[in-house]
């Protein structure tokens, strides 16, 4: 085996691909070969390096030097100056001004510990980082009940949005003695502004697989599915590759490690429906039906896919499992807060300098996230508000910038953590327009099963459109909240129930802006322009 002097990691994800990452990669290969450096420099593909809006980025070890916004013409310079002479090209390095205060925080990572460091398409790199040791430990040394207990003690809560304790969820299914149980990963990440699961799957697909294997064993499922939305092509390809590699090494299949335990994993692809993120709708879709939610109870843990007990968990939740098994529940509790242990992956976007993702301890304040990880508000504008948790989230104003980001702290303010999306808006943002976009999204995604949601979203859309065009009145605000409250009580699933949160929070926090649009003067100025 070769020992390389330099390791060059190129981030391959949709963002960099659309900026021409493949072409840069090929140019690097040609240049490296031209200077006969192929035994000294190792060019590797990895997942997202965590930067956005910076085009094609590469990271070079040793030194962790990052180049961004690379163009084809820059490649020869990097190869001759940096690779040959050892002089980094300052001009192309991630600028100091851009990153002042930016916190990379690699040490406190659990879910993303390998992302951007290893080649996600090679199982040996994952094995080299201690991968699949937890799977071996779980299967050879532990009983399913023990695993459920460890996960219970770790205090891990579902990362899909609702924050239900994972161990408790498993404990409903684990004791059932039936011939067939299923484990399903919910990778139908449709919440606007959320792409954490995509980056976990693209950056380190084996981590999800290992977690899924352990989880399936813990609840006694011999068949597992990963339900991915159809838009995530790169995820689907990388996961399929990872599954094939794991099967080849005997980590999947029948009689794994000679224990007599069988497990197989299959990918199911969605076709574009937000409601399929709801677990019973997801199961309907997996079975080949319209993705409309089922009545609960019976809960999927008792009667799920094909009427068999089925546990459905989010990608990020399950990606935590390998580390919990190898380090134990107490170690996991050393992260985050008392009631919400562990870390959380957030996606920060909108009007910030560095849109992207980060993994931090639960309970980190919103201010820290925006300023340190998001790089602050773009173009030196002022912060106005943030939409937390995607469309089914809440609008926060400046008053709550120091709120701790975990399930319980946010609940005190009537807010939710949701999926971890933070959409930052500067002083120029029009809150009426934002609410319009949220309601329009819900109107489109309402599945049509129940009347409160399908009719309610249409009615709300008419009201908000009226306000947006300067024809609303103050009573419209009252009727929107009352309608959303009625939907909250009577809708069949969380989709219709959750619209109350964005509507109430935006009207509470930014009422003046709505009133401004109802002013007659506004209408005239609009017509004049």
């Amino acid at each position, binding site marked *: 085996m070769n020992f390389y002097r330099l390791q060059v990691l190129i981030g391959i994800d949709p963002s960099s691909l659309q900026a021409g990452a493949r072409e840069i990669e090929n140019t690097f290969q040609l240049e490296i070969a031209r200077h006969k450096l192929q035994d000294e420099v190792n060019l590797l593909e990895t997942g997202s390096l965590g930067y956005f809006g910076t085009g094609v980025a590469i990271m070079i070890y040793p030194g962790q030097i990052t180049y961004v916004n690379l163009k084809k013409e820059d490649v020869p310079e990097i190869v001759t100056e940096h690779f040959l002479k050892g002089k980094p090209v300052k001009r192309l390095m991630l600028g100091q001004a851009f990153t002042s205060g930016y916190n990379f925080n690699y040490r406190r990572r659990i879910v993303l510990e390998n992302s951007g460091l290893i080649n996600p398409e090679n199982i040996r790199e994952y094995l080299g980082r201690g991968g699949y040791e937890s799977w071996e430990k779980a299967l050879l040394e532990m009983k399913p009940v023990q695993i459920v207990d460890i996960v219970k003690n770790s205090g891990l809560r579902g990362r899909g949005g609702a924050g239900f304790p994972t161990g408790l969820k498993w404990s409903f299914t684990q004791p059932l003695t039936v011939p067939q149980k299923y484990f399903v990963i919910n990778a139908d990440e449709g919440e606007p502004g959320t792409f954490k699961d995509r980056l976990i799957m693209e950056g380190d697909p084996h981590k999800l697989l290992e977690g899924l294997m352990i989880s399936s064993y813990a609840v006694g499922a011999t068949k597992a599915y990963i339900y991915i939305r159809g838009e995530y092509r790169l995820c689907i390809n990388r996961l399929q590759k990872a599954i094939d590699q794991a099967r080849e090494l005997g980590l999947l299949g029948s009689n794994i490690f000679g224990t007599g335990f069988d497990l197989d994993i299959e990918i199911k692809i969605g076709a*574009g429906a937000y409601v399929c993120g709801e677990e019973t709708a997801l199961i309907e879709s997996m079975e080949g*039906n319209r993705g409309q939610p089922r009545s609960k109870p019976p809960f999927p843990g008792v009667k799920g896919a094909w009427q068999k007990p089925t546990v459905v968990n989010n990608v990020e939740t399950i990606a935590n499992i390998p580390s919990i098994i190898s380090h134990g529940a107490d170690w996991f509790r050393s992260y985050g807060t008392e009631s919400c242990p562990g870390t959380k992956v957030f*996606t920060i976007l909108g009007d910030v300098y560095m849109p992207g993702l980060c993994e931090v301890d639960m309970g980190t304040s919103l201010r820290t996230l925006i300023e340190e990880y998001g790089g602050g508000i773009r173009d030196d504008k002022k912060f106005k508000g943030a939409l937390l948790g995607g469309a089914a989230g809440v609008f926060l104003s400046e008053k709550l910038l120091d709120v701790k980001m975990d399930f319980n702290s946010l609940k005190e303010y009537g807010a939710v953590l949701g999926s971890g999306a933070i959409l930052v808006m500067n002083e120029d943002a029009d809150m009426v327009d934002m609410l319009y976009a949220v309601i329009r999204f819900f109107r489109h995604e309402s599945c049509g099963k129940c009347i409160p949601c399908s009719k309610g979203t249409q009615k709300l859309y008419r009201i908000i459109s009226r306000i947006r065009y300067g024809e609303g009145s103050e009573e419209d605000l009252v009727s929107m909240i009352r309608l959303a409250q009625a939907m909250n009580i009577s809708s069949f699933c969380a989709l219709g129930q959750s619209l109350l949160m964005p509507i109430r929070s935006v009207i509470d926090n930014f009422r003046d802006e709505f009133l401004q649009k109802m002013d007659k003067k506004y209408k005239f100025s609009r017509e004049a322009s």
Partner: protein
Amino acid sequence: MYEEIFAKYSADKENLIAILHDVQNNHPQHYVSPEAINRVSEYLRIPVSHIQGVLTFYTMYSTRPRGKYIIRLCESPPCFLRGSESILAKLKQLLGVKLEGTTSDGLFTLELCACLGVCGNAPVMMINDELYGDLTEEKVVAVIKKLTGGEA
């Protein structure tokens, strides 16, 4: 074409969604034709009505013929905040079509879609399997020009 696709999947209802994806991707006009519905119905032994129901439920499927390039512009709040509405107006003006419409040369179909999960680069659109991010009106003009030129 149908035999090849069916050979990949067992005749179970759970494979319906994957089969419809394959059928649509292999059709030159990127849609699920009435003939395709009948063939899938015969293979899986599922009523046509069920397949119609599934087709119209999910946004990725189309039951009408579409262009060679399907433009799907994200209309979710993050892209909206960063100006997707002006991009939509530009696209409509450039192509001279309404939403869901196809240009008369059969090249482009314009659609809206929900979040594509690339919000760091908002506003974003997807043309077939390719993503285009950080869109500006100039960038849209360039992309359309490039795709149109490639055909001539």
